[in-house]
């Protein structure tokens, strides 16, 4: 939209901090465009302490303390690139894949870690925490930080795992220098696409503070210098797998009878095998849980918590498929329909029944007993327990994927065994139950209003 006249004030007339405020709303490619407009703006757009700090602050200033990252000495352009990538970590993930069957894992008698994980912003790091149900009879959950991702002043990722989870909150006590003296295990965190994460021990560091042993050595420094040299192939885009992993993955999947790799890579593989035995921590894979919360069109979607089979609190994940169906599984159970693991409930058509409800449905609901942990938060404020919460919608569900014979639907004993209902309450939570018993399991969202711990 071209103005008919040249305004009396123009961008160039603004004070510099106003110019920076304006530019802080743009993305790097847009900044690149802008910086081409004049020599003066080239210099402004290259200014790390001013522009790039403003960009970081605009995007993440409310979530983390920008000036604390990298001990306060980091190049902000580098920080911007890293945080743009790490931002996609924030949220819920679940552990995937089988536990490794290596000797170390078999020897340890520890139970597998909880499958649900949440990533949060810290003041100068991103923290991954395991989320497990508290066993105290309430809806409460326990959050145990175990993974700490930060940056060195030079911009290299500095990631550690606290295997026993005894570290408690990663507070200001943890600085980059103090790490070597504790039991923390250095790890690599690798993104494979946006929704798959691999966290594995970094055997190259050996547990002491020689942190310069990372694969990306000199390329990051270039970003901050005035001479913008083109970097070598090792840099690629930040967050892409280092070359070592790419060649390993390729060799793993390549035809075994094809000519092997160079002798250097064979030696490396041998060294890797030797190191395997000294691993202190088994690699873990995580898959992002993309739809964690209900939406108006998908009111049952997301992560929920409620009583499970053994009267203990459990976590459930309800997902919608592309053809209008819903499935609910316990978090950690395989999602695949043919895995042999029965769903908690499912339906192929998520159409709710609206009130007024039939007499039969009302009787079915009223005759049931609600099963739920003590809801401390609500009971403290004297709110109605679920028993008195009015039902706004009902949904027909099933608890087994076993084939239903259409003509006999609803008549056989098996069908009645598996058939059930979801009762959605006015406050957006819901309960489910099956015809085979007289209970209603009342679920609450795992993080109502975005708060995991309340």
């Amino acid at each position, binding site marked *: 939209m*071209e*103005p008919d006249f*040249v*305004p*009396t*004030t*123009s*961008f*160039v007339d*603004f*004070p510099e*901090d*106003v110019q920076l*405020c*304006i*530019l*802080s*709303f*743009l993305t*790097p*490619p*847009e*900044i*690149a*465009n*802008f*910086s*081409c*407009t*004049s*020599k003066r*703006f*080239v210099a402004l757009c290259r200014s790390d302490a001013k522009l790039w700090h403003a960009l970081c602050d605009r995007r993440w200033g409310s979530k983390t303390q920008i000036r604390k990252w990298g001990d306060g000495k980091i190049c902000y*352009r580098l920080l911007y690139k890293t945080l743009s990538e790490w931002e996609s970590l924030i949220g819920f993930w679940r552990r995937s894949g089988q536990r490794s069957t290596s000797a170390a894992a078999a020897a340890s008698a520890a139970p597998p870690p909880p499958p649900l994980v949440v990533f949060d912003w810290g003041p100068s790091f991103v923290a991954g925490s395991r989320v497990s149900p508290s066993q105290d009879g309430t809806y409460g959950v326990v959050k145990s930080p175990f993974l700490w991702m930060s940056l060195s002043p030079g911009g290299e990722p500095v990631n550690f795992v606290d295997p026993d989870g005894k570290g408690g909150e990663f507070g200001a006590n943890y600085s980059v220098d103090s790490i070597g003296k504790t039991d923390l295990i250095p790890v690599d965190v690798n993104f494979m696409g946006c929704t798959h994460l691999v966290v594995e021990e970094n055997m190259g560091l050996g547990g002491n503070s020689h942190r310069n042993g990372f694969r990306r050595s000199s390329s990051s420094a270039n*970003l901050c210098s005035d001479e*913008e040299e*083109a*970097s070598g192939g090792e840099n690629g885009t930040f967050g892409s797998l280092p070359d070592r992993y790419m060649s390993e993955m390729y060799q793993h999947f390549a035809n075994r009878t094809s000519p092997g790799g160079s002798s250097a890579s064979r030696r490396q593989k041998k060294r890797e095998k030797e190191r395997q035995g000294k691993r202190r921590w088994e690699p873990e894979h995580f898959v992002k849980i993309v739809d964690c919360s209900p939406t108006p069109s998908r009111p049952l979607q997301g992560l929920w918590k409620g009583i499970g089979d053994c009267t203990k609190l459990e976590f459930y994940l309800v997902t919608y498929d592309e053809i209008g169906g819903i499935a609910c599984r316990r978090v950690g159970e395989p999602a695949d329909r043919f895995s042999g693991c029965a769903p908690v409930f499912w339906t192929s058509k998520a159409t709710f029944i609206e009130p007024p409800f039939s007499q039969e449905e009302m009787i079915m609901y009223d005759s049931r007993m609600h099963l739920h942990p003590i809801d401390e938060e609500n009971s403290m404020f004297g709110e109605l327990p679920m028993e008195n919460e009015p039902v706004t919608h009902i949904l027909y569900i099933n608890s087994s994927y076993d084939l239903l014979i259409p003509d006999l639907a609803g008549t056989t004993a098996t069908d009645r065994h598996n058939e059930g209902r979801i009762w959605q309450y006015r406050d957006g939570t819901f309960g489910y139950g099956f015809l085979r018993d007289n209970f209603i399991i009342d679920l609450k969202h795992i993080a109502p209003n975005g708060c995991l711990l309340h």
Partner: protein
Amino acid sequence: MSSSPPPSSAAASPSCPKKMIALRSSDGETFEIEEAAALQSKTLENMIDEDCAGTPIPLPNVTGKILAKVVEFCSKHAEPGVDDESLRAWDAEFVNVEQATVFDYILAANFLEIPTLLNLTCNVVADMIRGKTPDEIRKFFNIKSIFSPEEEEEVRRENHWAFE
């Protein structure tokens, strides 16, 4: 900022008169603004603390036309009980004005240190930059460039690597 509370608080009941602050624009117009609204401006907040006599605060950098709108903005943002969505819609309407006026708002917001207004208006200017090529940006903002074509090409190349 001040240690003693103001004589009548902003949360007073309707029957109690709210404290009004008088402002004078560069062209001599006087405006009244509620104290709660005035406190949105860090500059005014400082001046209110120092001012005892209640004379109008002179604002030599802001014309009457713009000051009237700034008072309107601050008053709206000090209103209790406005939900986020309607405030956002109101803000969008507020900046739906000529470019020159938006620029004037920016200068006033900068001088008066009103972060909400500054962010709102700067985002509007950022929108003007978004999606334009360097040439279009130059024309739009009347930026005089003294690049030679070779220099400009070099900058473009360097940036391409740095930002992508």
